[in-house]
């Protein structure tokens, strides 16, 4: 038995260039990036500062979506392709609920209450969709070859996207936002209130999730299920319910992100989820997939990279964002698949 374990590592195709070279290349890339950021800041500090704030805001949203990826991956090792599209459905739902169905347009006291209500309902909405996707599709495929649930997730992503397309139309739709563009200026730079809302909600949820996973009984069940489903079952853990709970948490994160996205940017489109989902997945991998703090840090970093690329005087511009982000993803998976915070195991390789 022991020999199986040992040889499994050895027999993996190894194309490593050697630890030192890899580290050197990695460091060079990071240093070059930092130098580039500093040059930009020196040239136009005011612009760069506002870009930085926008990046933080964007990054916090990516972090919330990435949390959903990381939770689900952490427990059943499935890349939930449909997660981004779930987020997109959430944006459409929350905008419709708040503006069309509740008829709220201004930030009065009642408006704020309705906002909070929309928040909760959107979380429940996304959680419900995610749980039913698990119940009707992924659960039946738990013992199937790995390819099967992955293809199912891709199929579901298509389904969600087209529901969004039918619901929201094929073009970008703009919604009025309650907190939107209000803010105060510091040294000529507009600091939006939405930034504070997004950051504090993200931080709160991160703490809440960490608490649930590390301290509660349910969290213990989640960790046990992640380690060994059969073992967990033998210990009296209801594995199916635990996995459903995880999907619900992930869906709620997507719902939160959706609501905050609508309040920050006010626009949504049917393919928003695909793009943001990929960004968020990159963020989750960057932080070390399965790691909650890592997902948040990764999300903020990816948000900053995107904002810097699009807003900086020397940035490559919006039309290259995907290329930049995916290049990061590919380099990362090749050189450091365990991410920034993950443990170096054979797991992901």
């Amino acid at each position, binding site marked *: 038995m022991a020999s199986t374990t040992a040889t499994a590592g050895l027999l993996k195709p*190894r194309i490593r260039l050697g630890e030192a070279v890899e580290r050197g290349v990695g460091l060079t890339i990071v240093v070059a990036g930092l130098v580039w950021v500093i040059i930009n800041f020196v040239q136009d500090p005011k612009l760069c500062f506002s870009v930085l704030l926008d990046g933080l805001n964007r990054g916090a949203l990516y972090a919330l979506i990435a949390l959903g990826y990381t939770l689900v991956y952490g427990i059943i090792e499935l890349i939930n392709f449909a997660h981004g599209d779930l987020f997109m459905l959430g944006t459409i739902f929350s905008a419709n609920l708040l503006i069309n169905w509740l008829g709220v347009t201004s930030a009065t006291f009642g408006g704020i209450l309705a906002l909070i209500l929309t928040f909760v309902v959107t979380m429940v909405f996304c959680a419900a969709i995610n749980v039913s996707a698990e119940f009707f*599709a992924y659960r*039946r495929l738990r013992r*199937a070859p790995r390819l099967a649930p992955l*293809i199912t997730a891709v199929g*579901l992503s298509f389904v969600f996207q*087209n529901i969004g397309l039918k619901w929201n139309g094929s073009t970008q739709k703009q919604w009025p936002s309650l907190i939107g563009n209000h803010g105060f200026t510091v040294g000529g730079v507009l600091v939006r209130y939405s930034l504070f809302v997004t950051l504090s909600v993200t931080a709160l949820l991160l703490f809440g999730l960490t608490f649930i996973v590390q301290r509660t009984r349910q969290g213990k069940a989640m960790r046990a299920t992640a380690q060994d489903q059969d073992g967990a079952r033998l210990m009296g853990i209801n594995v199916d319910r635990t996995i459903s709970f995880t999907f619900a948490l992930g869906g709620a994160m997507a719902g939160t992100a959706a609501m905050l996205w609508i309040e920050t940017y006010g626009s949504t489109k049917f393919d928003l989820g695909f793009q943001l989902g990929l960004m968020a997945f990159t963020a989750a991998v960057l932080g070390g997939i399965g790691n909650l703090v890592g997902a948040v840090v990764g999300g903020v970093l990816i948000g900053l990279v995107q904002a810097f690329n699009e807003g900086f005087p020397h940035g490559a511009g919006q039309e290259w964002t995907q*290329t930049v982000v*995916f290049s990061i993803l590919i380099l990362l*998976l090749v050189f450091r698949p365990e991410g920034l915070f993950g443990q170096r195991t054979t797991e992901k390789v």
Partner: protein
Amino acid sequence: MSTLPAALKAPRQRRSIASLAWPLSFTAAVILVFVFYRYWLPNIANSGERFVADWFPITTINLCVIWVIMAIGLNVVVGYAGLLDLGYVAFWAIGSYMGAWLMSAQFFQVNFHLGDPTIVSKGQGVHISFWLVLLAAGAFCALWGVIIGGPTLRLRSDYLAIVTLGFGEIIPQVFQNGDKEHIGFNLTSGTKGIGPIDPIGTGWLSNFKGVDPALGLSGYELPYKFLVYAVIAAFCVFVSLRIRRGRLGRAWLAIREDELAASMMGVSLVKAKLSAYAVGAVFGGLGGVAYATLVGSVFPNFTFNFSITILLMVVLGGMGNVWGVILGALVISWINYTGLGQFGDWYNGQFNSHVDFPSYNFLIFGVILVLMMLFRREGFLPESRTRLIMREPARTEMEAVGADIAAAEAEIEITEETEDELVSSETTKRADGGES
């Protein structure tokens, strides 16, 4: 088509007539379709002609053949080698742009002609014979297959899917941004696309009656183009069937079923995986060039939807079985281009409604994908071998290390230490990861 009989007439022939079955029936089917559209269709009754023109237009037939080529290519990667490639559209794009660069006036700075002397375009730019472009695009795509495959060698199936997806997004974006404004040199004309693309030169075949020296975009030439694309498809079928039976094909299947076991049996994982990507990419490149000549221009509209549609064709038809994949490609592409729209027209006419059926195509495809995975994972025309694998539940941890074989002995023999190792080792759990 000429390559097929030659190859089958190998000296030490001890094959029965059965091995000739597919080349013969394929040729017969192709000739039948060609004769129907070229000679018969213009002469049949008006209503019949309209029915065929509505439901089975020759343009759709040609597009279907191109999707068939793509699906056969992806089948090599996903069906044979079990590597989930979600960015296959990258090769389609590269192939199409190779065709566009080598067969148009895009690079007007140079004046380069090669191959077919009957080619119509005598102007500026690079104008190379279609058949040579096929070779060039195949080679170029093979190179890119290795470049894209390289970083994925160390990754497990789902990470591999993400990396290929990343490449599938990056490469079309590069083509989209490849104009003077963005990269300082007009490589791809950006969103304006490249066109017109040279027609297919027919060379000495133009001596036959009715064959044009150059197959362009006019409707009358489309049946001839169909023949050209069918030859490419036949080549792809031939190659993938032959490789499947050979050493490399068996290595791919072994990797698909159990990577660890395969590598222990001496299969070189690096070589086998990279060649799977390369062969798949070659087919994608051939299809890309064919697509460029069919449309007559190339635009950077290669999206993720393309990749998933091809994947759906492979899954629907039956991973690993070339005939199933061809069937899947024909059905799905026909539904996509004509079937759904025609059905919608018929339905709306019948029930006096206004449902926009074609806009639901991807919703339907997504649903089919999910349902297939839930209820018929092996596809409609599966290889018997695939059916067994897809139906078999993934092994549990204990089985992965061989516990199911020696279950009884294990009770006695496993000492406490090794048992601990067994439970704690992550690698054993991972051992069943490669088999999907």
